[in-house]
């Protein structure tokens, strides 16, 4: 028997998709029965009360969660987010319902033993509710009380070799795709770079450093499976600077509709018959820069005009491969629409080498120049993307020492004025008035 009546939440279970309400009800029941005999360190009815307060919020049309708070583990300024409800008498189980962010491993590779240990810990010291994973990428442990936080942190760090993630005005936990560990499209080892960035910028990850949040996300190729271009202040997207490798025999196998060369990499086709593969229509016709042609059974690509959309490679992976000279592009300033609307990242560095042997020197230099500028000039709660909008992309180029390049230009300029700086003009602003008067009367 449920502790609270939840008619509005029950309705959410009636749709065709799996419902978090069903999951929470199952968890509430599991805690009530406690067949495993767990010595719960927080109220056993915390999940019942979570359902209760959510129902009340739906009924009232407003939240019953309060502000954040002063919770954290010693020495850390992130990783724990205080949550308190404003109806503690009716819902004592969620009076304190803090969130913990746990730094997910690069590529989100887990052992089943690790996951069992983690969920066991969370059943014991928390609500048992997790979010695998939050938008930033961390493992999110939802719902515990203040006295449990240091205990959980101790177990995580001492017994599991596991750190907390970032929250607040910190560097957030870097997130990446599987990269070269599983994917032939990946232009660099995203897992290795996430590991490096996490260690290199530990201080920024654990202690507030910035005007607001700052996110790194890493995609191994322009397919952008992590959507770093839309979700991170600094996005590293794998790319190549030589040519797409073409296996002409394999291209012709695709054209001939050879069964061993399924179009669209053999992706799910549904029940519809899409007909035989048509290279002209499905690849050449869809190329955004129309830089490909197929003549006399030979596919040619004008690589200088390729924008790395990945479409042709995705459709014919046995015939086309990424180039050999690989690295990454750096884009900056993406964010969600809290202020000013959502923004996609802007290309700052078209190509940079990804070199673990020199500690990614070329990349850390860009990161630190951008941080120095944002920390100095950024207003409180201003994201990097908003600072770029406010002070201009030109200013960003100046502080990073990067020269303007054609790749920075999105569309022809609409402003006819050019503002020169004194050092950009021969002779500067000073002039010899007497010399001038020799040739020009007053």
């Amino acid at each position: 028997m449920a502790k609270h009546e939840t008619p509005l939440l029950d309705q959410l279970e009636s749709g065709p998709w799996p419902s978090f309400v069903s999951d929470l009800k199952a968890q509430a029941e599991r805690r009530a029965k406690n067949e495993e005999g767990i010595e719960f360190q927080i109220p056993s009815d915390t999940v019942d009360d979570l359902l209760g307060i959510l129902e009340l919020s739906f009924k009232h049309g407003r939240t019953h969660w309060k502000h954040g708070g002063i919770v954290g583990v010693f020495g850390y300024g992130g990783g724990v987010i205080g949550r308190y409800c404003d109806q503690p008498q009716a819902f004592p189980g969620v009076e304190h319902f803090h969130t913990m962010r746990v730094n997910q491993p690069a590529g989100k590779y887990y052992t089943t033993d690790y996951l069992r240990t983690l969920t066991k810990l969370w059943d014991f010291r928390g609500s048992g509710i997790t979010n695998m994973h939050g938008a930033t990428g961390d493992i999110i442990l939802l719902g515990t009380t203040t006295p449990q936080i240091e205990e959980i942190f101790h177990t995580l760090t001492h017994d599991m070799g596991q750190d907390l993630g970032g929250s607040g005005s910190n560097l957030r936990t870097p997130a990446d795709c599987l990269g070269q560990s599983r994917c032939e499209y990946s232009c660099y080892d995203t897992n290795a770079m996430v590991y490096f960035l996490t260690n290199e910028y530990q201080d920024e990850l654990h202690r507030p450093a910035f005007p607001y949040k700052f996110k790194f996300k890493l995609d191994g190729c322009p397919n952008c499976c992590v959507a770093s271009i839309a979700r991170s202040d600094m996005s590293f997207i794998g790319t190549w600077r030589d040519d797409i490798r073409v296996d002409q025999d394999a291209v012709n196998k695709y054209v001939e509709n050879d069964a061993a060369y399924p179009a669209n990499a053999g992706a799910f086709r549904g029940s519809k018959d899409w007909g035989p593969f048509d290279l002209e229509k499905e690849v050449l016709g869809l190329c955004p820069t129309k830089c490909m042609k197929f003549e006399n059974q030979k596919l040619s690509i004008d690589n200088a005009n390729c924008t790395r959309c990945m479409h042709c490679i995705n459709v014919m992976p046995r015939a086309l491969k990424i180039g050999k000279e690989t690295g990454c592009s750096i884009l900056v300033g993406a964010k969600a629409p809290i202020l000013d609307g959502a923004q996609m990242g802007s290309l700052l560095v078209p190509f940079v080498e990804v070199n673990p042997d020199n500690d990614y020197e070329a990349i850390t230099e860009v990161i630190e120049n951008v941080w120095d500028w944002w920390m100095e000039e950024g207003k409180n709660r201003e994201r990097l993307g908003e600072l770029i909008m406010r002070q201009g992309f030109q200013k960003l180029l100046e502080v990073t020492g990067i020269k303007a390049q054609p790749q920075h230009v999105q569309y022809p300029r609409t402003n006819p004025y050019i503002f020169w700086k004194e050092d950009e003009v021969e002779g500067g602003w000073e002039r010899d008035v007497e010399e001038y008067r020799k040739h020009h009367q007053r």
Partner: protein
Amino acid sequence: MSDLLDNTEEATKAVVAFLEKKSKSKTKFYLKDFYKVFPDDKPRMIKKVVNKMVEREILEYWSSGSTTMYGLKGAGIQHSSEGEE
């Protein structure tokens, strides 16, 4: 690093004096507010020193989850005022 920021005791005094002066109107401050206390220093250095003051339990963090603020330890809303021990 300026002499003021380099001297732990003096830097602490300056920060505490700044926070106490403002304590009537507010108890939580952004990191950027401390830039005024150390006008000759780089933000990254200020961040290191201020965060050390949290470790030494002179200051404490307050976090909304998305933004972090600093306050004098014990000032403003505390666990106890949320009904926690």
